[in-house]
């Protein structure tokens, strides 16, 4: 009656060989899907390229971005600005500084602003969101009311007000203003996913096992709630670049413009945008491409981390 033993063994061995010995974790399988996603590859290449440019900018830049080496070609009366010429592929800006070098070195500041603002915003948001999501009750109500107040002010307006609070504007005030605007976004997002985790069966299981509250929060709730926050932070990187540019554009950026930054360059170019649009074009194009890179990475991360799409 029984199935031939040799065949049965064959079936068993087949079944075993298909099942790998070591497991594939959630993160590993997300990474595997990410690697095969062309959207991620394009986004990551863009970001990689700009990070590389930023790192190598001091070497690559042909001139010092602060030196007015083409100042003799600038004339307020005739509204002339140095055009593209030998050694200066983009020409000069309205102060006679080499535009190409400024765009190159501008990547450093812009990326720095974006990353720092996002990290500070994420840190604040994580703290508040974890507090609210982990404790619930009145802590949750208190934190969320604060967050609601922050959210009720339009983000750029809030950033402008924060930027204006500081007596002397520096790059740091821009970073802080952009970061604070992002805190409520992160806090709300994390709190929502944390609360969902709080009600989930595996957290209940941990509670019934007698696992300590701290361990439940940091080992079960937070790691499982982080997915959407990670996605959001890549998107915020893009937003931060644009917000920082907007602040600089509105004159709330760093007062000292010897260190170039794309938003600030864009802002300074507005007076001459009719006659010399190229001054605005290069920094604007860079901002758009970098923001696009971060957005693409964020979107593909969202797909990869979605447990429903795992196979």
């Amino acid at each position, binding site marked *: 009656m029984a199935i031939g033993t040799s065949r049965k063994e064959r079936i068993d061995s087949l079944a075993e060989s298909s099942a790998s010995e070591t497991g594939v974790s959630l*993160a590993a399988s997300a990474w595997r899907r990410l690697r095969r996603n062309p959207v991620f590859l394009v986004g990551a290449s863009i970001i990689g390229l700009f990070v590389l440019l930023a790192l190598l900018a001091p070497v690559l830049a042909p001139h010092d971005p602060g030196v007015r080496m083409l100042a003799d070609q600038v004339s307020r009366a005739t509204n002339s600005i140095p055009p593209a010429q030998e050694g200066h592929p983009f020409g000069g800006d309205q102060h006679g500084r080499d535009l190409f070098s400024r765009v190159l070195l501008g990547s450093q500041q812009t990326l720095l602003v974006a990353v720092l603002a996002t990290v500070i915003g994420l840190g604040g948001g994580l703290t508040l969101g974890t507090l609210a999501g982990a404790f619930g009750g009145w802590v949750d109500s208190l934190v969320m009311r604060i967050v609601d107040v922050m959210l009720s002010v339009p983000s750029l307006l809030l950033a402008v007000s924060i930027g204006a609070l500081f007596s002397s504007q520096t790059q740091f005030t821009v970073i802080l203003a952009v970061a604070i605007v992002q805190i409520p976004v992160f806090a709300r997002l994390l709190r929502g996913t944390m609360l969902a985790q709080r009600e989930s069966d595996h957290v209940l299981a941990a509670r019934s*096992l*007698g696992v300590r509250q701290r361990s439940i929060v940091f080992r079960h709730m937070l790691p499982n709630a982080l997915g959407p926050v990670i996605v959001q932070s890549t998107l915020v990187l893009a937003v931060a670049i644009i917000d920082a540019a907007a602040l600089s554009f509105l004159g709330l950026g760093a007062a000292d413009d010897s260190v170039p930054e794309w938003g600030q360059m864009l802002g300074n170019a507005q007076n001459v945008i009719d006659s010399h649009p190229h001054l605005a074009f290069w920094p604007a194009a860079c901002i758009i491409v970098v923001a696009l890179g971060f957005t693409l990475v964020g979107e593909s991360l969202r797909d990869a981390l979605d447990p429903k799409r795992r196979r």
Partner: protein
Amino acid sequence: MSAARGESANVSTAPEEDRVLVEVDDLKVHFPIKRGVVLDRTVGHVYAVDGVDLRIQRGETYGLVGESGCGKSTLGRALLRLVDQTGGRVVFDGVDLSTLRGEPLRRMRRRMQMVFQDPMSSLDPRQSVASILVEGLRAHGLDTDRVATDRRLRELLTAVGLPGTALRKYPHEFSGGQRQRIGIARALTVNPDLVVADEPVSALDVSVQAQVINLLGDLQEEFGLTYLVIAHDLAVVRHISDRIGVMYLGGLVEEAASDALYQEPLHPYTRALLSAVPVPDPELEDRREHILLSGDLPSPAAPPSGCRFHTRCPWRQADRCDTERPALREITPGHRVACHFAEDIRDGRIARHEVAAEAVDATTGLSGVASTSAAGPASVTEVLGP
């Protein structure tokens, strides 16, 4: 699944009182319904569990059945102090759980564990099986020796019928039945006395359900466990339970030994429930009596007055059923029923009658008596005809 061997075997000679592991007295769990923008106002309560008394003996399997919304899951969770009770008390092995807070409660949790319905959502997707299993040990300081811990985990996996290689894998790499085995192994890591299994097989395929049911039985013998099994499937509950309690709208309406309950159900609700379960035997299906209940379960936020079941009861008698809530009383030894007329119904002194369906609102629980179709069509053909 008879009384367990092992460590609880020696207590079978102990006096009656000592054999009780869990004692539930007049347990109430009411969830407030809150409304309000700034300050939450309580506008009502969901009476999820509303006055339940029961005893669970050491080594037995107590089955709790009822339909969704009857409060059976809440009762199970209240018993484990996973939800806070509103009133009454739960005494576990002589310790009143409602007095415990913080660290003593956390340490107490080692002795009572839970198995969940959905084996996927109850396992943390980010943790490997090893880390899921070791967590309980660590929480109670039982993982001092790495070699011993590893050996214990492998023993547990063997006990639930999984290979040792499973330790390094993640929940999503297993089938539903295997995940449920992991969930059961997790509950057993800390050597509990009581396991509350909330719908342990209802998410599984039919052919796999039997494997898990058998496994629960084997583990009970091997580890001397006491079970509270909560399920809506009466056939499953009857198969694994020694005693069964039937719940309806937050209260226990009948309690009896498993066989007695199925041979002679005394409460009208139990009778209707049993007759509603489809049986895989066409001859019997054609022959047997079907008691169709009209209408839906009333909302637990607005339970009917008197006997909770009177709005749907085909044996309802005027006045007394609407006004007086029947107490759970012992009719024959070990068989308790909450019905004023249980004996009359059993002996056929009260006849069944038609019940008009009441409209039950899913959101508010307000009900209005339906205008039963005096003017409505008599059959489908009348509506669908040309």
